[in-house]
């Protein structure tokens, strides 16, 4: 096979451009067959070769037996969003193989289990049959392990076909199994070698795809968003975590438990500097968070859309009684149970206004592991500074998939614990009014239960209350309190992370988006420029409530496309609630909501269609 870096290489049977470090691999397997290990090793091998790479696991809501697809994208230009087209298929699942092959574009490559005879379906693809069962038997004498080891064979085959450095594959595999599982690592390595040897001796490379070393990953890490969030919460100083398991958020807390056990045990006493409690449901989870935050702890929960729906009443209490809370919402496809293992950004509108009555909550939109890590500290600081619930809207794509990221930066700033009066403060002041707005920012001073002072106590209630936290039904008291809460929400605006703008000279149109939509949008802007000659500006929102930057961005452009990963254009809807109609008249909508991560082509096609290009 050719191993040159030239981009145009003639291949036997027809001329094709060699595609170096620019293609996507899809592995179709069965849930529960251990393919995750093989896929991770494959992805890491490419990562170690310095090539920008991303992996996405498309899995069913099922323990074992249903189809699963894992997509790995290598991109020399650094695009890590989902690529709509599959270039290189590894077909291991008889159930979906025909359909998977039918969907491929001409010229794609297919590694498949020989008995499936997929080569009979089409003549415009590059087929590589591999007798997996014959190859696995000699390397894995124990029959019951074969189902798991079998998948490692395709790693060897693919490594040969794409030109992966076997040393890197070995390194990735050793790392995956760890020092304690040496025997398993050896068994799997032998399977990789068997696959590689078979490919070398029996397959003739015909497809154009290959991996060549780059140096784009120096210093980088590979991590999923939920683990990054968990790490962020540990460094943010969380002390109370109460939760109820729900896909796709469970791994956030489970990873956090592991980190906390390692790094948050007091050395002298051997006791924990945290409490993590699995609650009986999401109502209890948020109730415990609110009780703990009221008593002064940095408390959080992690959940997904259905859990947030259950927390609605309590979140209204926390808003009105002004109690901090950090809620991670790893969004998945709704409504109702929806598609529990697919991704969407469908809780934007709900979280911003959750609960009955007039309520508003800040929402953060992380787009990467780095932001999951840093926004954990931001969320706790905001919650305590402004004594209010804060949502962090991640999503399944970000939370559960592995991403390449820059090493996280240690949080340097001191924790912002907000306006809390101590016994010494009270000795000096004599007393306090819980809900009085002394500084004009709408935020009152609070005391914590257990404060040893006769004037420390106050009564917290979700019913009408005045400045002194006393019960009231007086119209003036009610209005004054609600207006102060509005003032407080405005103060939050200034403390939020600012949106990231890329305004291009002469661009008439702009794209506005948040969270993981950035990957499809960033790539689409290149496509629009390169394919259609259309220059665009972009604004990535990091938080709600929106700031002035959004308004001026809209002012600067003739038309602004708001990109939403939901059916009802929720991000756009939130803008309609908050912005002047003169500005919202310029907004257009691009929506993507089929449960798969947003891809660039979808955005490009919509802009082209709506612009009439």
């Amino acid at each position, binding site marked *: 096979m050719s191993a040159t870096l030239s981009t145009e290489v003639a291949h036997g049977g027809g001329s094709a451009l060699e595609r170096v470090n620019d293609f996507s691999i899809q592995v179709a397997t069965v849930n529960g067959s251990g393919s995750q290990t093989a896929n991770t090793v494959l992805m890491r091998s490419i990562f170690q070769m310095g090539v920008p790479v991303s992996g996405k696991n498309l899995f069913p809501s099922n323990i074992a037996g249903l189809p699963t697809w894992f997509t790995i994208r290598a991109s020399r230009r650094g695009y890590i969003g989902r690529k709509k087209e599959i270039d290189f298929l590894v077909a291991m699942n008889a159930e979906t193989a025909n359909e998977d092959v039918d969907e491929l574009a001409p010229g794609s490559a297919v590694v498949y289990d020989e008995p499936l005879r997929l080569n009979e379906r089409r003549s415009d693809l590059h087929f590589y049959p591999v007798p997996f069962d014959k190859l696995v038997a000699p390397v894995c004498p124990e029959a019951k392990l074969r189902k798991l080891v079998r998948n490692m064979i395709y790693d060897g085959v693919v490594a040969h076909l794409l030109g992966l450095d076997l040393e890197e594959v070995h390194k990735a595999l050793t790392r995956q199994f760890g020092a304690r599982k040496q025997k398993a690592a050896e068994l799997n390595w032998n399977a990789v070698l068997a696959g590689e040897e078979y490919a070398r001796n029996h397959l003739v490379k015909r497809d154009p795809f290959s991996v060549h070393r780059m140096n784009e990953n120096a210093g980088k*890490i*590979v991590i999923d968003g939920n683990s990054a969030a968990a*790490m962020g919460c*540990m460094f*943010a*100083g*969380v*002390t*109370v975590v*109460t939760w109820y398991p729900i896909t796709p958020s469970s791994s956030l807390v489970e990873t956090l438990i592991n*980190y906390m056990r390692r*790094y*948050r045990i007091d050395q002298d*006493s051997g006791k*924990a*500097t*945290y*409490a993590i*409690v699995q609650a*009986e*449901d999401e*109502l*209890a*989870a*948020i*109730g*415990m*968070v*609110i*009780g*703990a*935050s*009221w*008593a*002064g*702890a*940095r*408390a959080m929960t992690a959940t997904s859309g259905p859990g947030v729906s259950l927390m609605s*009443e*309590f979140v209204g*209490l926390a808003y009105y009684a002004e109690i901090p809370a950090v809620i991670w919402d790893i969004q998945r496809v709704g409504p109702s149970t929806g598609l529990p293992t697919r991704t969407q950004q469908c809780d934007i509108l709900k979280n911003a206004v959750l609960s009955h009555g007039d309520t508003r909550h800040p929402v953060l939109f992380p787009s990467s592991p780095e932001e999951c890590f840093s926004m954990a500290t931001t969320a706790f600081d905001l919650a305590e500074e402004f004594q209010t619930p804060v949502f962090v809207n991640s999503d399944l794509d970000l939370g559960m998939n592995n991403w390449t990221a820059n*090493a*996280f930066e*240690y949080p340097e700033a*001191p*924790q912002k614990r907000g306006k809390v009066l101590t016994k010494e403060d009270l000795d000096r002041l004599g007393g306090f009014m819980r809900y009085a707005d002394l500084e004009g920012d709408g935020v009152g001073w609070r005391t*914590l*239960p*257990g*404060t040893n002072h*006769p004037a*420390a*106590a*106050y*009564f*917290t*209630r*979700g*019913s009408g209350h005045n400045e002194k936290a006393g*019960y009231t039904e007086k119209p003036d008291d009610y209005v004054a309190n609600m207006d102060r809460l509005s003032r407080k929400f405005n103060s939050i605006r200034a403390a939020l992370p600012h949106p990231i703008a890329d305004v291009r000279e002469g661009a008439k149109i702009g794209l506005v988006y948040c969270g993981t939509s950035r990957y499809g949008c960033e790539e689409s802007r290149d496509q629009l420029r390169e394919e259609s000659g259309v220059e665009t500006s972009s604004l990535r929102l990091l938080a709600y409530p929106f700031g002035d930057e959004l308004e001026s961005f809209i002012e600067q452009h003739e038309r602004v496309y708001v990109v939403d990963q939901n059916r009802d254009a929720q991000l756009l809807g939130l803008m309609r609630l908050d912005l002047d109609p003169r500005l919202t008249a310029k907004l257009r909508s691009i929506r993507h909501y089929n449960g798969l991560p947003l891809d660039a082509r979808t955005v490009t096609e919509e802009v082209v269609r709506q612009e009439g290009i």
Partner: protein
Amino acid sequence: MSTIPATPPKKTNHIGLEVLNYRGAKTTLCAGCGHNAVSERLVECFFEMGVEPWRVAKFSGIGCSSKSPAYFLSMAHGFNSVHGRAPSVSTGAMLANKTLLGIVVTGDGDTASIGIGQYIHMLRRNVPLIYIIENNGVYGLTKGQFSATSDSGAKSKSGVVNELQPVDCCVEAIQIGATFVARSFSGDKRQLQGLLKAAIAHRGLSVIDVISPCVTFNDHEGSTKSYSYMKDHDEPLHTVDFVPYFTDIEVEIEEGQVQDIEMHDGSRLRLHKLEHAYDPTDRLKALTTIQASKDAKEVLTGVLYLDATSENFLELLNTVDAPLATLPQSATRPPREVLSALMEELR
């Protein structure tokens, strides 16, 4: 020569506070409501036990009973949360600060209906809390609907007869994991005092189901939660005395008539036997005795179950001695080297 009448010395408890320091706001409940008597007992007991009021945290859900925390211990923080959810809120607060003395006052609507899920799980965890159910068998704030603790056959004020079986909060508590379970009557001052003091001393979850008549909606003929019904059907298991650890009064004990149970703090719960030979440390016996009393149309009151030794939820979690809430940043943010090591693992 002038004579100034000598003011009698004010009565103080062993930490030097007066009963005044334990009072709350003026009640807004109906005159004669059983809940007011419970609030008065709480004021007396916290005073006599010499508890620092600022160390107490009060919780409730929604309903008449849930207004009670405003009517005792103004010097303690209070939290009137959402309907049926005081167990989770109070659990969270105790996680944040294990040095607090938490007390929940709720009703039968909170506990046996909307919040029964949270109630059951609080029991399972044996969270160190005093959980008082002011049980009147009726929804007061919404004007007289039956609650889930209404007895089968009980008649509402409008004449409707309840045909469903009641939830017995004490039976649930004993079966699932509370370590101190008692039933009382708001009109039995002495018994309620003894039980509340024991609950203050107990280091696990104390559940006290107090039959507390609603004078407005459930005090009529045909009600099984009225003052007159309780006067006729209250069947005390024993008289309850509580001897705190800080008093050393020695009383002569009649052999065989008194059961002394030592509490975690060294206090003693002294049960004087009446007709029943009842040992509240026997869980199975407790359940069968309660069932037998129901069949006999009696309301059994007193200490139904006590396990003074089991570990509570906070002890199982093994957190540092200081409150998690106020740990300094140095204790809650791992050093820079930890992040560097984690980054290295992920490269």
